[in-house]
């Protein structure tokens, strides 16, 4: 059964000047961004950056100290059945009614959703190799994560929030999970926010990046845009005219000698900037696109520089 979402908000997640304090500790400080519908958003950040807090705020499990977060067009603190029906949540530490079996938990959860996709549930149960007869309390962490994902997607949400959904999954299941997510995107145009440290995996599906650093927003931009802005250059100068340090603001890190230098750069137009470097230093410039794994520290570094300046 495939029932399309009743409507898709143009911006299913809107964060405005959001702050969250736990006692005196600041988890999020003045964070603002909007996520366009139909995107797969990678929510990145180091441990303690505020990713889980942000996702908990987005689904109304926490209340903001200041600012606002709107989920599916409604203030997250006031999410009603209409919004919850279209919201899927996969939490980092899934908590179930652990005295149930997998089957009972699925039936229980399904009973709350008018558009639960039983066919998808069956297919995913098989694909993820989940045993419906097992009690949840006996499941391994990986299996619990699988169940959590299953419960999060089978009602075909239009916004899916996933907090470290794949950290305990083996590579094979992880690959299958990515397929499932891609399929959901293709079929329903679901917006997915996925927080993960497995950047190599996430990179395959995301098209938008939100990066948090110490509770503050470092970046919110499309992944394509970031890939165009960040690059690794290898400069080769036959005459050895390369300087020991590069003072250009676009250079985020570099290493090498006067003949050969490797640097990571960030610029609005990396192609023309590369040409400028080539003529300035009379060197051959080879550019390589960065993976998300390589880009991530640069995103944080760039924010640090901005904060300092």
């Amino acid at each position, binding site marked *: 059964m495939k029932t399309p979402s009743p409507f898709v908000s143009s911006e299913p997640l809107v964060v405005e000047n959001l702050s969250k304090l736990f006692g005196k500790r600041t988890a999020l400080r003045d964070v603002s961004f909007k996520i366009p519908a139909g995107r797969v958003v990678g929510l990145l950040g180091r441990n303690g950056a505020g990713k889980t807090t942000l996702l908990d705020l987005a*689904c*109304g*499990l926490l209340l903001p100290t200041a600012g606002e977060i709107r989920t599916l067009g409604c203030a997250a603190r006031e999410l*009603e*059945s*209409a919004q*919850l*029906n279209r*919201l899927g*949540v996969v*939490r980092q*530490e*899934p*908590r*179930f*009614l652990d*005295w*149930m079996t997998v089957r*009972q938990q699925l*039936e*229980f*959860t399904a*009973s*709350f*959703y008018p558009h639960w996709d039983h066919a998808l549930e069956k297919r995913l149960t098989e694909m993820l190799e989940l045993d419906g007869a097992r009690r949840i309390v006996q499941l391994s962490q990986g299996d619990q994560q699988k169940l959590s994902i299953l*419960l999060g997607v089978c009602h075909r949400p239009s916004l899916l929030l996933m907090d470290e959904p794949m950290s305990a999954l083996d590579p094979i299941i992880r690959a299958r999970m990515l397929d499932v997510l891609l399929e959901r995107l293709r079929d329903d145009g679901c917006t997915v926010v996925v927080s993960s440290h497995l950047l190599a995996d996430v990179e395959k599906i995301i098209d938008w990046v939100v990066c948090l650093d110490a509770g503050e927003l470092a970046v919110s931009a499309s992944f394509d845009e970031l890939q165009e802005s960040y690059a690794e250059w290898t400069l080769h100068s036959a005459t050895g005219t390369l300087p020991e340090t590069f003072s250009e603001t676009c250079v985020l890190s570099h290493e090498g000698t006067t003949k050969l230098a490797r640097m990571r750069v960030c610029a609005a137009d990396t192609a023309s900037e590369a040409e400028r470097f080539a003529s300035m230093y009379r060197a051959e410039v080879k550019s390589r696109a960065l993976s998300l794994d390589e880009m991530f520290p640069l995103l944080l570094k760039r924010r640090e520089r901005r904060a300092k300046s």
Partner: protein
Amino acid sequence: MKAGAKQFFVFWRPLPLLWAAVSLINPVFMTCFLHKAPESLARFLGATMLLPLGAGMTLALIAGRVIHQPAVMLLPGARRFYQRAFLWMAVAVGGGLVGFAVWTTANALPVGSVAALVFLCLSVGLLWEPLSRWWGSTWLLALVTLAMCVAGIFVVEIRELVAGNPGWFLAAAAAAFFLMSRVIFAKERVRERAMTVMMLCGADLKTLSRVGLARKKWVAQDWTRGAVAATDERGWLAAFSHEWFGAMSWPRIVVLMLWLVGVWAMVALGVVASHVKLTQQTLSSAALSREFFALVWSVGSERSGVPILPFVTCAAALFLFPFVLTYPRMTALYPISRRMFARLVMRMTMRQTIAQVGIVLAMTLLVAWLATVLAGETFRWRASSMLAVPLALLPVLPWIAGLMLPLSQWMTNPGRGLLTRYGLLLAAGWLAGLASACVLSFFAAQLLTWPGVVCVVIAMLPGWCWLRNRVNRFYLLSDLVARERM
């Protein structure tokens, strides 16, 4: 099956079922127990009127367990569904109670006293769990509990309570009360004990995790790291508030206190009731209440010139005081004691071990001697002295065990520990506990009958378990900290 029914009946687990069974069986059993057999259909029906109460409480418990879960809170309509269900259950419970109270009072049926007290036990025991978990309605639940307790007290028919041998009933009620509360905590306790033992044997967190004992909540976040951070950063007060107010909300503290007071109230009633013999008389409820309190007040005066009720109350209050001190003590001491525990737990010398065992033995002998002398010379005993001495010792022993920690600290860090404000607080609490326990044990001994003995023994068990738990936690926490820092 309709979705709503599925949402309700899908919740099952052995504990609520057990409680439901107890709710069903208890009144019938108690009726038969006290009156040999149900003498009439009316009496039997009176007993079975507890069914909706028990069932309502069980359902409330289930709802309470369920609704707090994030997994449920995010389900569309679930919050409202369970809130509504819970309110209906509360109405059913309250209505059932009122109806029952009116019916038994109007008919002056003896089952009333039984039912009221059983219900009292059930209510607090059952509500403990949802209260601790479902924050949204804790105050409502606390109020319901309080109302039920008050109603229960009024429903009690005094002549039934004091006639025959109601001490047995109270002993049974106290046992049920205690057992229920222990059942709730049993799993945690077993895990905690096993974990502590393994840690003391040198297992690390990885090993504990592998055998399924290390609990993230404890080891990683809740009380371990939270307490460590709180105490390191903000000192004793923060640690105190972390333990009391971080881990426990005010409603939970209130119910905890109700629970303790409930246990002690039952013990006091058991002791008194097992002593007092009254002829059955028919009086109005108000007159009965007056009579009861006058009676309780005067009990003991005839014998020793000391009214029992105020003494027992004071003793109970004093007994609670050190419990309150237990939490801050555990967290307050460990920043100083992590060095101590590095030595004590991991490198304790033979001399230290022998000294500690010696202290405990010496204190035990001292209190035993005091109890024997005082009890033997001051009070008349109704049982053999062989029974009286251990009975008198029972309330005192937890305090002797409690003395181990500061003394150990003092031994390994001479000049510190006992002389700090934590040490002084602990010493004050300890002395208050010891004094109150002694007072209580002497009164219990004075009024000694078999039901009285059972009551006192049962009443001591929570104190024992609690103290041991706290000691275990202290050791565990200190050990974790010691390992982390070394």
